[in-house]
């Protein structure tokens, strides 16, 4: 019986639970003995000219080794002349967001760093700041005057064709905000660097060591082989640690300038304003359909807030565009997008990266359409979901959905939730005039994983003379349990027990080529690479065994239960893996694979959220959350469930609690963890997960990616539930996060207009 698909507890855990993991700040290694500490001085203004920096007081403070500003960066490649939007390492002349690094203070101890940083005197001449994309798009306040505009990567038609909507019985037009959030991995950004002659080792908390190496090499103007990146344990990434940003490049630079090891760990307050943010889109949408529930036309014209520097903004907008039609068969789909720069923290990938936004908007719109035509939102979905017999399905945006059972997923969730009983309870409370009302919200979603499939992933497996297996993977865990999953794959294919499998990642010397972990790609590229390595090793072993046992290779049998080979019919004579590694001689028993799938894959599902709303205060309580997230066959159900739980929690948090808010001057007002409402266990119920495994034909194991699916499905289900709770009062929409005050305002407005209507 295969170990695949069984519930295996993680081999990573004992270490994490007893001695603790080793994150960058935990490193106590000889190369970092006596390392100096880096503390950044950051801009307190959203937009300003730097008119002077006086470091003299700081330089004289106790324990200060050096104070650097942009003027000291004379040994790095200049910003590309043809890119007026280039992001500098330390701000020079202009700061464009609160939190932008302006100077760095290097000290003997951490505490001295905080002390000395306060003494760096920066003179600023404030400039007008633009914070909202709707303002920034007017190009009245420019972040980069040389560029002449704040708009980046405009995409889509100049003019939209209105004809398809004119043919519809019902047309709905809305503007939705998918609010800016902060990723808040529990481990903040952290890095350390030490040079040895011409070569630097950088320890960094990131999601892809090889790309990180390229970024650092490029930033310093050295060849990539002069940089070794070692990623120890990472305390969460969620997209915010894809590659590294200027703060980490500067750490490597400072170590070179000082010829001394340095290390850096930001504070949480710094992280909330200086680590990239997520989401931040504004959608103008139009939906046209008929009263029979059929959606005929959908238009989304949206702006991606890029923040002050356009890092991956255009990519995010592209993902939203690709997934805009979502799970529905819609005859006409019109999409336009642009990235708009604002005087805020740069926006990057955050769990879902462009896909939650696409789904949240269309799921909201479907519910509004349902309310408009007086049809149950589940029924409207059924009438528009891509039917099971239409796969593979080519979308209007050119993607090919591999496999899906959208209607079945929805129906299973409705059944598990007890939809009819929930509607009855909702009605009962309304009829009784209960101040605490019930809301039921749905979402159907499809998501794209491994969208960067051409990059593939690398794997290398080496069988040791002791019969163990060492796996080198380009995948890059931040908690996803790859060591366990890849060991399961090896055990399944080769019969080497998991406790004899070691998985290595994150060291560019050991793994020079690799892509990393994001976009829910790892299992279907990295895991498959390991799988393919195992298959290759099996074939090599077959040849070796055949030669040794003087038999036809086709007669060799691998018994995975014992991890040994024998000739068919001669079970008494066995060869184990240790022996085969020996037989492989100098060459060793190894395999290298760079697996590049031919296409991305499309997990899908449905969520249902049940909320209780206190109509006197607007307080929302999530009572139940039922989800079905189908990512194909499950290699390890425990790990898949954990990914879904975490994703759901983040999705719920965006719907009800989290927002990275700025005031009109560009000051972040939720700038520490007390004010930024990341939720605890007390805010959530236990979740109800349903299992469905619809395979893909893209890879031999039929697997898709699960990491971001929960987030994508959860947010709209919860937002829809809140609105549904108040639909009897005439509320049709509430923006996210649906805080108590927002909900209370919506109730008031609805009651107010009710009163006015009655008069």
């Amino acid at each position, binding site marked *: 019986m295969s170990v695949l698909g069984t519930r295996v507890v993680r081999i990573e855990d004992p270490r994490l639970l007893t001695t603790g993991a080793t994150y960058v700040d935990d490193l106590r290694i000889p190369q970092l003995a006596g390392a100096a500490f880096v503390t950044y001085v950051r801009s307190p203004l959203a937009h300003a000219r730097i008119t002077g920096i006086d470091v003299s007081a700081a330089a004289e403070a106790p324990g200060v080794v050096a104070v650097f500003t942009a003027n000291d960066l004379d040994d790095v490649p200049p910003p590309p002349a043809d890119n007026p939007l280039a992001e500098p390492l330390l701000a020079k002349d202009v700061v464009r967001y609160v939190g932008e690094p302006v100077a760095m203070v290097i000290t003997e101890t951490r505490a001295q760093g*905080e*002390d000395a940083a*306060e003494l760096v005197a920066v003179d600023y001449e404030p400039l007008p700041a633009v914070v909202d994309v709707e303002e920034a798009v007017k190009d009245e306040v420019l972040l980069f005057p040389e560029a002449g505009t704040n708009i980046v990567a405009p995409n889509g038609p100049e003019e939209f064709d209105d004809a398809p909507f004119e043919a519809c019985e019902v047309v709905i037009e809305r503007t939705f905000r998918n609010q800016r959030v902060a990723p808040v991995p529990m481990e903040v950004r952290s890095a350390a660097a030490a040079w040895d002659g011409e070569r630097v080792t950088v320890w960094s908390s990131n999601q892809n060591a090889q790309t990180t190496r390229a970024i650092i090499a490029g930033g310093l103007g050295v060849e990539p082989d002069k940089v070794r990146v070692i990623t120890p344990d990472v305390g969460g990434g969620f997209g915010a640690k894809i590659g590294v940003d200027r703060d980490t490049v500067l750490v490597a630079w400072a170590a070179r300038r000082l010829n001394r090891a340095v290390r850096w760990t930001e504070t949480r*307050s710094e992280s909330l304003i200086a680590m990239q943010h997520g989401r931040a889109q504004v959608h103008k949408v139009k939906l046209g359909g008929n009263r029979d529930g059929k959606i005929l036309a959908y238009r989304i014209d949206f702006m991606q807030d890029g923040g002050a520097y356009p890092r991956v903004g255009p990519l995010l907008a592209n993902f939203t565009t690709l997934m805009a039609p979502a799970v529905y068969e819609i005859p006409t789909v019109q999409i336009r997008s642009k990235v708009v720069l604002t005087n805020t923290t740069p926006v990057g990938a955050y769990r879902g990266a462009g896909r939650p936004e696409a789904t949240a908007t269309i799921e909201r719109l479907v519910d509004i359409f349902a309310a408009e035509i007086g049809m149950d939102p589940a029924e409207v979905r059924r009438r528009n979901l891509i039917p099971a017999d239409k796969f593979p399905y080519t979308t209007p945006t050119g993607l090919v959905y591999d496999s899906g059972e959208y209607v079945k997923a929805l129906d299973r969730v409705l059944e598990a939730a007890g939809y009819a009983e929930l509607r009855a309870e909702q009605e009962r409370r309304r009829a009784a005039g209960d101040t605490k009302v019930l809301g039921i919200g749905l979402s159907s979603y499809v998501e794209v994983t491994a969208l960067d499939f051409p990059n593939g992933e690398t794997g290398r497996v080496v069988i040791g003379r002791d019969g163990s297996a060492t796996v080198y993977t380009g995948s890059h865990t931040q908690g996803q349990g790859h060591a366990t999953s890849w060991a399961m794959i090896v055990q399944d294919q080769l019969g080497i027990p998991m406790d004899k499998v070691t998985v290595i990642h994150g060291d560019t010397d050991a793994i020079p080529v690799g892509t990393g972990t994001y976009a829910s790609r790892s299992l279907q590229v990295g895991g498959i690479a390991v799988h393919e390595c195992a298959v290759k090793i099996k074939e090599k072993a077959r040849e070796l065994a055949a030669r040794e046992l003087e038999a036809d290779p086709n007669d060799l049998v691998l018994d995975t239960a014992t991890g040994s080979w024998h000739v068919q019919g001669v079970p008494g004579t066995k060869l184990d893996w240790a022996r085969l590694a020996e037989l492989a001689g100098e060459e060793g028993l190894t395999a290298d694979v760079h697996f590049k799938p031919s296409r991305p894959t499309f997990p899908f599902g449905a969520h249902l959220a049940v909320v209780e709303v206190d109509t006197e*205060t607007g307080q929302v309580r999530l009572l139940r959350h039922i989800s079905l997230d189908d990512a194909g066959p499950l290699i390890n159900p425990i790990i898949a469930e954990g990914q879904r739980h975490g994703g759901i929690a983040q999705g719920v948090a965006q719907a009800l609690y989290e927002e990275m808010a700025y005031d009109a001057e560009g000051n972040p007002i939720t700038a520490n963890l007390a*004010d930024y*409402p990341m939720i605890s266990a007390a805010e959530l119920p236990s979740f109800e997960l349903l299992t469905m495994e619809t395979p893909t034909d893209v890879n031999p194991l039929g697997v898709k990616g699960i990491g971001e699916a929960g987030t994508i499905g959860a947010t709209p289900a919860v937002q829809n539930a809140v609105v549904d709770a108040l639909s009897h009062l005439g509320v049709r929409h509430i923006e996210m996060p649906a*805080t108590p*005050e927002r909900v209370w305002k919506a109730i008031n407005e609805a009651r107010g207009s009710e009163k006015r209507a009655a008069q």
Partner: protein
Amino acid sequence: MIPATFTYRRAESVDEAIELAGQYGEDAKFLAGGHSLLPLMKLRLAQPEVLVDIGRLRDLSYIRDQGDHVAIGALTRHHDLATSELLAEQLPLLHHAAGTIGDPQVRHRGTIGGSLAHADPAGDLPAVVLALEATLVARGPSGSREIPATEFFRGLFESALEPGELLTEIRVPKPAARGWSFQKFTKRAIDWAIVGVAVQGDRIGLVNMGEKPVRATAVEQALASGASIRDAAEHAADGLSPASDVHASAEYRAQLARVLVRRGLEEARARA
């Protein structure tokens, strides 16, 4: 993350604490549980030059039945208030409210004296001692004095304590009217109250409805003149200026106050 440099002194007795405070004057602050002061110091919003640690004065940690009142040592921790059977029986409002402060870790350190001296209008205990009409006992260089809770909270983070004075005891009269309620409205469980209401009989203390903790005097007057709970509660925000901040607008706070006062009075009535 790391406080500015300071000198740490530890007091072995109340007298020594007062002496040390007197020695350093305005440069010194008392450190009890540290969960009001240290968070401010870590963000460098407070930078006292000297901390006088009074956290070891165990003889200031007690809960005693004194017949007509309960005497609570100022260094009694929130955890001890929340797990005291005596308080559960005699002062359930205080018992319950203490159990909602922060989280379990915070409650293992924070003290009633520290919370009250901090005089944060968003704190739970000031509103509670107002509703319970407690008397606060302070000791300083010129001896001991008693301060009614209603005179203790002067302004934003400003108490009636003179420099060099520390709280030693909180005396809470056993209430004649036994009905009580504590309505604490938060977004997340761990948050400070957006608005809170402490009810003991017909006495109502308000959390976060202005610069300092106050009684809902307009409501109390309405009740005294025979108004129904529903009508009296409408006056919850009268004469008050709650803040507008990242957590809530003033208008919303006023609305919450009206709803929570009504619910608090109804619950207290049901418990009476």
